[in-house]
């Protein structure tokens, strides 16, 4: 029943995220023919600045379907919306229950704080895994509708990269939610951290979680970014552990 409660706590965040990401995936695939008509225009963009260079690079990538999917989908919507929803799924929990209260009621039940946190973390991560993988899987499923193909394996690898990097934001939100009494500070702090790491990514791409999130290494080289996946997973695990320590020390 703890699982059920955890699901009740997070279901709307999860369902809204799933709907938005899925609609976005549908749009990216189904609008492919229309967007391809704009590619020649993008190629003519003048300017030597970073912005002009990015547009021309994007147009270049869009010349093949795999490049189009990566530049228009994996590099954009899931990293932006995904960061938001991974963070939203990580906020709340025992200390700051945004929907329904009941922290003393929960604490009066014969369940350890570790168990409460563990169930909350597992539910949130499972939901984030679905958000990261399922919309991506619609791409190979829908691609035949626009006379294209996309490999299920590629979609899965990108989904896993998205999941591992997004789990960093989820775990950070989970940790901060054991420290602050409200849902807003964890949310804002994590989103600020994401913003800073996005800027960092412009300078040093390897240091930004968004590089892993978009699966850029896999897209460009075809090899799975194991070191990034392992590092992100270890950092997430460390933050979940820190959350359990923080929760154990907390007075209610």
């Amino acid at each position, binding site marked *: *029943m703890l699982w059920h409660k955890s699901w009740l706590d997070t279901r709307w965040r999860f369902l809204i995220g799933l709907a938005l990401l899925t609609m976005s995936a549908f749009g990216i695939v189904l609008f492919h023919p229309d967007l391809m008509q704009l590619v020649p225009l993008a190629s003519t963009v003048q300017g030597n600045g970073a912005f002009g260079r990015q547009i021309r690079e994007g147009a270049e990538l869009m010349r093949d379907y795999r490049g189009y999917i990566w530049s228009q989908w994996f590099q954009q919507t899931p990293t932006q919306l995904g960061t938001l929803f991974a963070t939203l799924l990580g906020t709340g929990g025992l200390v700051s229950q945004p929907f*329904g209260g*009941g922290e003393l*009621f929960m604490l009066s039940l014969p369940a350890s704080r570790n168990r409460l946190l563990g169930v909350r973390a597992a539910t949130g991560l499972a939901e984030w895994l679905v958000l990261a993988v399922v919309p991506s899987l619609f791409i190979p499923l829908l691609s035949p509708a626009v006379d294209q193909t996309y490999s299920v394996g590629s979609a899965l690898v990108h989904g896993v990269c998205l999941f591992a990097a997004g789990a960093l934001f989820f775990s950070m939100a989970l940790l901060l939610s054991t420290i602050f009494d409200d849902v807003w500070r964890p949310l804002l702090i994590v989103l600020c951290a994401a913003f800073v790491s996005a800027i960092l990514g412009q300078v040093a791409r390897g240091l930004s979680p968004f590089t892993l999130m978009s699966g850029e290494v896999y897209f460009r080289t075809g090899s799975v970014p194991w070191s990034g996946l392992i590092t992100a997973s270890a950092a997430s695990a460390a933050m979940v552990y820190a959350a359990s320590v923080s929760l154990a020390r907390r007075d209610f």
Partner: protein
Amino acid sequence: MAEPFIIETADLRKRYDGVEAVRGLNLQVPAGSIYGFLGRNGAGKTTTIKMLLGMVRPTSGRASVFGLAADAQETSVEIRRRTGFVSENKDLYDAMTVDEIVRFTASFYPGWRPDLQQRYLRAFELPLHQKVKQLSRGGRTKLALALALCRGARLLVLDEPTSGLDPSMIEEVLQALVSHVAGEEMTVFFSSHQIAEVEQIADHVAIIDRGHAVLSGELDTLRERFRRIQLVFDGDAPQMAFRAAGVVRVDRNGRVLTVLSSAGADAVLDEARALSPVSTDVAPVTLKEIFLETVAVED
């Protein structure tokens, strides 16, 4: 062997940001008692209860429930498995319906009592399909109490169970509590600042003020021990410092000297005879007076 005391604390302390909420609390709650934990707002009642249930970690001292340490995570889970709790704010999970929260709570307790569940849901007229957040204050209190009573618990811990209720609802809740306890072998530890309700149902009482117990014991014994002795003199009442044990307070008012004793009247009367009062009168003291006097002494 059953523990003689279900709850024991020794020099229990809790400090929050420089403020000592509980200061060296010593309590012994006998098994099978209905124990009223009486104190003013902010006296440390809720903090004590939270320490007993592992929601707050003591700064120092010891607290045990069923002989198990209250501040260790594993034993705290076991304590909560055997305890029903109602928080002051009747904290429940608002997003669930009554039916859902009953099933949710039941899933944690192997000794959950479906017979009591049926009885209390019917007696308290709780609408199964209504959301908890839509319940009235009274409905919420009844639901919280029903969830605590059906756990098959050996201990009920109630933090201000009747706060915010109207008199008829208070009566209904207290009656339900008393009749439940009469039929089950259990201990009730409840905090309150409502002296009348403590007097109505408790057989033991502790008065807590500024974080420590200023008085505790069996209610009848306390009533026996506490006496107000009035001495009337021919002229102005003399200044007198009584040596008798248990003198709580001495008031001089014109010809009248009033002594409040917590150790009966005999020793005070023996001592007062030397002053040759023209009349003496010994009167029992109500719990309200005991409370006000002991708390006033602290002030």
